[in-house]
């Protein structure tokens, strides 16, 4: 576990994506099987064993440490596993630190009563870093500092010609410790065959459309649909099983059992997950209640009823139809839908139009919270993973804007670690400024330099990495929607806020009132 814990430590502290990939790659290249495979499972969240409770750690600590010293230490460090890892009074032993595979195997088979002795033996044999990883692993609190996608990206880099999607498309047919996968990547072995497992296929993404693109578009070649403000999902039903995936290949089946139950005959479908009440799409904040859950209560299912709006089909039965043109696939999708009539699903409506100006008008009039804008898809486009140019366009509605006052600034990460680049801004309520959001994009490098200098020259207070600044700069903030929120003091939350302009011309006293923003909050849609 030494190499594993060292890698975790570096991942957690490294902010940069490229740095994380280099760290992962180095680990996969230098570690033997099955250690690297089990580490991969730990990183991708596929490791399953009955976890020990935090109580076990407390018990061990109380057997080996003085209660007063333990309390003082815990108070200082603030994290139970870390406190024990750092202060553990190791007894002399001739044992080596355990291998990751040994730990995982033992935890899967050991009787509960044996655990305390086994774990304290491991702790005695290990240094602080291994102890920390060990305690976090067995209590289920391991934070990796890298996504599953990043791990697959690092792996793909280890074999020439491989892209992350190649791994993605077999991933859900594999199991730890992934011997076949590593043999394929490092030893020129055969590509592992997922057979009929319900694996994920990388989705086709749209490009944001610019005015210059718009001028070149041949209206007759394109189909239009609404762009809904939900999350992109892939529904997979095969002879081998069913699964629901997020756009990032995460298996989210557990959180949406009612969608799984509604799946029809074998197919791979592409659609938008929404909360839908009486046929009306609820704001994104409702859907958020359902996200990031491993399981879901009956009450949640009732209060936040989910629904998938289907817009494409990748596999019809076992037949891969991604090379067919969009219009053909649409016919197949309609046929599949008519045949199955699945609950909790409908078809994304096709918007008829002959001229782009008609769409432009529709787009302007669309103000329902759940509509982000329009999608334009070429009728002859095959389904291409990634973000191919010119086939699919997203035409978002114009953002809303407010003029807000810069209140706090925080340093960024990685390349921006020396810049105050994260800005909290607020609006007036009478004499008082209330923070309404945070933005860290939208400005040019030049503007960042200027803002950074301004923040340093106008700091009134410091709170750790955060600086409070004079009320001196007005920022025009663009955002996609404003929604009521109980989590913010101001009572409102912004979707995708970014800095659109720095209003050096505007005195802070003339920035917007909170009421102005509240008037933009979208109620339940009427359209």
């Amino acid at each position, binding site marked *: 576990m030494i190499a594993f814990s060292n890698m975790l430590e*570096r991942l*957690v*502290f*490294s*902010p*940069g994506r490229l*740095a994380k990939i*280099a*760290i992962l790659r*180095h680990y996969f290249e230098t570690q033997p099987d099955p250690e690297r495979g089990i580490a991969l499972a730990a990183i991708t969240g596929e490791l399953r064993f009955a976890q020990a409770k935090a109580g076990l750690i407390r018990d061990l600590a109380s057997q080996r*440490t*003085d209660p*007063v*010293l333990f309390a*003082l*230490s815990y108070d*200082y*460090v*603030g*994290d139970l596993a*870390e*406190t024990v890892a*750092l*202060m553990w*009074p190791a007894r002399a032993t001739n044992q080596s630190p355990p291998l990751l595979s040994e730990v995982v195997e033992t935890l899967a088979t050991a009787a509960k009563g044996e655990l305390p002795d086994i774990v304290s033996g491991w702790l005695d044999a290990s*240094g*602080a870093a291994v102890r920390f990883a060990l305690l976090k692993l067995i209590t289920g609190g391991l934070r990796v500092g890298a996504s599953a996608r990043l791990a697959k990206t690092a792996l793909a880099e280890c074999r020439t010609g491989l892209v992350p999607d190649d791994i993605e498309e077999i991933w859900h047919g594999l199991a730890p410790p992934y011997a076949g996968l590593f043999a394929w990547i490092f030893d020129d072995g055969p590509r592992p065959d997922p057979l009929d497992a319900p694996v994920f296929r990388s989705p086709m993404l749209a490009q944001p459309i610019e005015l210059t693109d718009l001028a070149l578009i041949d209206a007759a070649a394109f189909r239009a649909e609404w762009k809904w403000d939900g999350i992109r999902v892939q529904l997979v039903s095969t002879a081998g099983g069913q699964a629901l995936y997020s756009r990032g290949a995460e298996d989210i089946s557990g959180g949406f059992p009612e969608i799984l139950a509604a799946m029809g005959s074998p197919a791979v479908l592409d659609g938008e997950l929404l909360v839908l009440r009486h046929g009306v799409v609820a704001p994104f904040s409702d859907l958020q209640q359902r996200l990031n859950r491993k399981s879901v209560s009956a009450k949640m299912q009732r209060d936040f009823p989910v629904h998938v709006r289907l817009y494409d089909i990748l596999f019809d039965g076992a037949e891969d139809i991604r090379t067919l043109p969009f219009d053909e696939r649409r016919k197949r999708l309609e046929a599949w839908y008519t045949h199955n009539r699945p609950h909790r699903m409908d078809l994304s409506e096709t918007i008829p139009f002959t001229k782009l100006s008609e769409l432009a008008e529709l787009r302007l009039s669309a103000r329902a919270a759940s509509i982000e804008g329009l999608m334009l898809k070429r009728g002859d486009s095959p389904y291409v993973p990634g973000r191919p140019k010119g086939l699919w366009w997203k035409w978002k509605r114009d953002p809303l804007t407010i003029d807000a006052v810069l209140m706090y600034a925080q*340093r960024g*990460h990685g*390349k921006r*670690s*020396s810049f105050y680049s994260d800005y909290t801004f607020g609006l007036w309520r009478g004499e008082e400024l209330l923070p309404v959001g945070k933005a860290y994009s939208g400005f040019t490098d030049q503007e960042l330099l200027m803002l950074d200098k301004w923040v340093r020259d106008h700091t009134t207070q410091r709170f*750790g*990495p955060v600086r409070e600044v004079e009320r001196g700069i007005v920022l025009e903030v663009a955002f996609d929607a404003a929604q009521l929120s109980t989590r913010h003091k101001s009572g409102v939350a912004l979707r995708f806020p970014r800095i659109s302009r720095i209003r050096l011309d505007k005195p802070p006293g003339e920035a917007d009132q909170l009421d102005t923003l509240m008037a933009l909050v979208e109620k339940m849609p009427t359209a």
Partner: protein
Amino acid sequence: MPHPQTWLKPLLEGLYCEPGGFFIDPQRPVGRAVITHGHSDHARPGHVAALATAPTIAIMQARMGEGAPGTTQALRFGERIRLGSVTMWLEPAGHVLGSAQVCMEYEGSRAVVSGDYKRGADSTCEPFVAVPCDVFVTEATFALPVFQHPDPHAEIAKLLESIKLFPERTHVVGCYSLGKTQRLISLIRQAGWDAPIWLHGALLPMCKIYEDFGVRLGDLRPATVAAKAQLVGQIVLGPPSAIADRWARRLAEPVVCLASGWMRVRQRAKQGGVELPLVISDHADWRELLETLEEVGAPEVWVTHGREEALIHEAGLRGIKGRALRLVGYGDEGEE
């Protein structure tokens, strides 16, 4: 035999040896001061007369300019002098170059003030000497069982491995200018790194003093004027305040490292935006503090600053009487 508490007193200015007529590391200007070492929380400006080791005096003079003591007297380790009715001498504390413990004898009773100290090997200063005494006055910067400094050579190995992993980036290590910088350089040299080590301008004067006192640091160059391209794959040292700030923008995609005992705790490293924490400290860790209490064998320990609660508790368990002096002004954490 008078108990040291009758003649060694914590006053507002600092610890005062009454029959000797001197303060130890006073926080305010006094007539006569004995200074344990050159860190600015112990060596304050404005004293009329000061006694210390020769390196400490050189450090004070270099740092303070007009605030340097009016008159100075340099003592060799072990050299005994009479001040008032007290015999006083200095013994090495192993903290930084010139750092000393202040040993005092008055009518047969002996007190030792450690100043800051460490027990781990350090080729840039003389190692700590344990002096048996009746009262031992200790620091407690890292007096919690969670602080157990790892082998510093293993920490340097981490740094060198990281340079191999990221050869296109510059590794910038934050370290305090007096002590940590030179120890780090010496550890890096011991690991076989013969290439130039690049320094922020603020670190150069203290390195010069170390060299003057015979500590060899190898090829050191100012990072201030160096071209960005030259620093690729190199080690740059800078004060902790500069490594993640504007100064570091001159470096190629810097890997921000920080050498400090505080790096043992994750949250500390996270807060500072540190990408590679290196647990290397000038101070005794928990085990070294306890080992030292055993070695000096004093029935009573006074704690100047730090996490005194834990140390006094543990001392009590070992039959040693503890007393918290709560002297203000010491232990500026920026200096570790």
